Every structure is written in structure tokens, then in C-alpha cells.
């Protein structure tokens, strides 16, 4: 069993499960967003670690200095992850603005307090 070879995937799984746990178990909305961020970063690390080639270098062609460089790291996951990072910050910004709005409406950002207020409103109607 190639133990050192698969080590990077296991670290990614640890990070991913930490983010997953934070999103599920914590009631505070901002903490959930942080957990989502951790989850996203773990996915990025997964892709980037898959794109590394042993003995390769960064995927930039430099005509004068490139004698002897045969192998480049795979540029395709880099592109996908670049897009993903920017999308992650866009969703984080939108989620944070929603949290601000929720705070204005309900006065709190703890999930159980918000649900309690929703239930009270339903009973009153």
C-alpha cells in the first residue's frame, strides 16, 4: 500500500470534514460561512495537489531559461481553481450580505434563535 503516496488526499479529507462539521454543527451563521470557506479551500488543495508532477516546474514557458525543463505542472486544474477561488469569494460576499440583512430583520445571527422567531411568527398568524 503506497502510504506516502496518498498522504495528500488524506489531509484534504481531514480539512474537508472539518469544514463539513463546522457548517453542520455550529449555529452561528458567520461561523458557517467560515466553515464553508475551509471546505472550499480543501477542494482547491485537492485539485492542485493532483496537478503536481514530480520533477516538474511552474507552467510558464521561458524561452531563455528553459533548457533541460521537460515537464511542467498541469495547467488545466490551475485554471479551474482560479475560477473557483473567485467564485468562492463572490459567494462569500453575497452570503455575508445576506447575514447582514438577516441580522437587521431578526436581530440575531444564531440559527436556533432565528428559527424560534420564525415559529413564533407562524403561530401568531
Amino acid at each position, binding site marked *: 500500500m*503506497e502510504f506516502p*503516496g*496518498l*498522504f*495528500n*488526499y*488524506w*489531509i484534504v*479529507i*481531514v*480539512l*474537508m470534514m*472539518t469544514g*463539513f*462539521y463546522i457548517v*453542520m*454543527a*455550529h449555529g452561528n451563521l*458567520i*461561523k458557517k460561512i*467560515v*466553515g464553508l*470557506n*475551509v471546505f472550499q*479551500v480543501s477542494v*482547491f*488543495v485537492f485539485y*492542485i495537489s*493532483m*496537478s*503536481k*508532477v514530480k520533477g516538474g*516546474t*511552474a*507552467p*510558464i*514557458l521561458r524561452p531563455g531559461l528553459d533548457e533541460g525543463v521537460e515537464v*511542467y*505542472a*498541469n*495547467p*488545466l486544474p*490551475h*485554471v*479551474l*481553481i*482560479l*475560477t473557483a477561488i*473567485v467564485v468562492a*469569494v*463572490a459567494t*462569500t*460576499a*453575497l452570503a*455575508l*450580505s*445576506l447575514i*447582514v440583512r438577516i441580522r437587521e430583520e431578526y436581530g440575531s*445571527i*444564531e440559527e436556533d434563535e432565528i428559527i424560534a422567531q420564525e415559529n413564533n411568527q407562524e403561530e401568531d398568524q
Partner: protein
Amino acid sequence: MAVTALTMAHLRNLFGVVMLSGVFSLQAAALYVALDAVDVAFTEAAVGAGISTLLMLSALAITSSMEKSRKGVSKGPLALAVLTGVLLIYATFDMPVYGDPNAPIHQHVALHYIKNSGQEIGIPNIVTSVLASYRGYDTLGEVTVIFTAAAGVLAVIGRNRRSRGKDKKNGEKSMKFKSVLRVTSKLLIPPILLFALYVQFHGDYGPGGGFQAGVIFASAMILYALIFGVGNARQAIPAWVTRSGIALGVLLYAGVGIASMLMGGSFLNYSVLASEPTLGQLIGINLIELGVGVTVASAMVTIYYNFAAKAPEEWTPEEEEESEGDL
């Protein structure tokens, strides 16, 4: 990195959690450099450790900063997380070994990109050529996502029209008593803007490109807004400029695509934009990176303006207690 993530799960002080998330992003950026992904590292450092932390801090300023205490570790989610983790670990035994050059993902399209992007497109940075030319549709979608996010933030916590008169008052109030910060930021903001332009146009030759440049430009504006007050920043770059900037970038990007259609090629095929294919590619890539940079910068500044407008009034410095004057 795992230690940082676990500490973030444990801490109740949200300010500390947000700071740790910035540290986490920085560690991820360092990891990417070690894994030869320099473009991604640049973007992660600028976006994750910079803008993301800033937005979370702004949100924290508007809401509370301590989490309600929970009753220990919740069993259900923990069991679910551990179970999923075990299943995923079982799934990794089929995956290729780390660094293996014969892994399937290195075989097909990527080989074509690495071998041929030198002749077909002619710019040294393969990641930029893949991002802007080979996978141009994806990047168009990404710019639209940023546009949508900024539009969404505007829709959810948009500025109300009545407070336009408050800008000037807010601007004057926060100018005093901060001389060290004011002087230093006045010294630093022009080089930051210059660096943003350098990164924007140097994306062909090294790590860089539209996204990173847009974020760095936005961070210069946000620095100005932080030190000199949002009122002054709104007078320097008014809200209507940033709102139109968001749309203009996407328009530029799609416009390049339509222009290449009008010139006889397919949508976003830059080879037809000039007499020679590589020159056309160069023009097309630079134009769309410019569009991306404009949209990203305007979106980040718009989002920050909207967050700052919601901050409670006691965030402006307290002049009454500043009896000792300037430090």
C-alpha cells in the same frame, strides 16, 4: 493547515475565527507555491487572505462578535462527518499517487495545451493562455458570476438614496487624528495602484492577470476608504462609477467575442482579430483581461461600499476622547 482549521472550529470568539481564516488562506497560498501553482497562489493570497478577510471583518462589525456557547460537541454531525471521511478515505485507494506523471489527468488535453500553446497563442504563461483563450467561455461565466454577486449585494443591502447628503459630513469627520496612518497610506496607495496595473498587463509573462489585478486595485481603494472615511472615498470614486464598472467589464468581454464573430470567426476566437493569429490572440487576451480586471475591481469596491454603509455610527473615531492629540 489542519491545526488551523480545527482551532477555527473550536474558537467562540468570531474575531479570532476570522483572523484565523485569513491565516488559513495564507497557508493555502504557501502550499500552492510549493505545489508549483504560482498563479493560483497569487490569486489565493490576494483574494482569500485579503478581500475575504476584509469582508468578513466588515460583516462582524455590523453583527455581533461572539458566538453563543453550545452544549459540547454535537454527536450527530460529528458522526456524519467521520463516516463521510472514512468513506472518502476508502475511495482514495484507487486514486493515482501524488506527483505521478502518468496519471490520467496529465495525458489528454493538458498535453496539448503544454505542447501547443507556445505556437498557437504565443504567450509564455500557459495558465493565462488556457484561462483566456482555450477556456474563454468558462472565464466569461466567471466574470458574470462576479457581476451577479455584486448585483446581489446591491439588491440585498443596497444604499438608500436619502443618505447622499451624509457623505460630505462623514468625510470630514474621520480626517482628524490619524496623521501617521494618513501619511503612510498616501505614500502607499500610488504604488499599490501601479502594482495593480503591472500585474494586469504582465499576466501574459508571469503569474498575474485580470483577477489578481482587480483585487489589488480594489484593495487600494478600500485602504483609502478605511483611512479617510467612506464619505471621501465615495467622492473620489462615486457609486455610479463602480456600478457601471461592474457592467462595463462584462460588456467588454462579451464585446470582444461578438467582434470576433463579426470578423468571421466563431464567438471568442481571437485569431481573427488581427492579420496574424498570434497577434490576434494577444489583443484578444489583453482586452478580456482588462474587462475582467475592471469588473472585479468595481465589484469588490461596490461590495465594500455597501458593507461600510451599514456599519453602526460608533465606528467613526471618537474625537471627544482624543485629548492627547496626535500620537
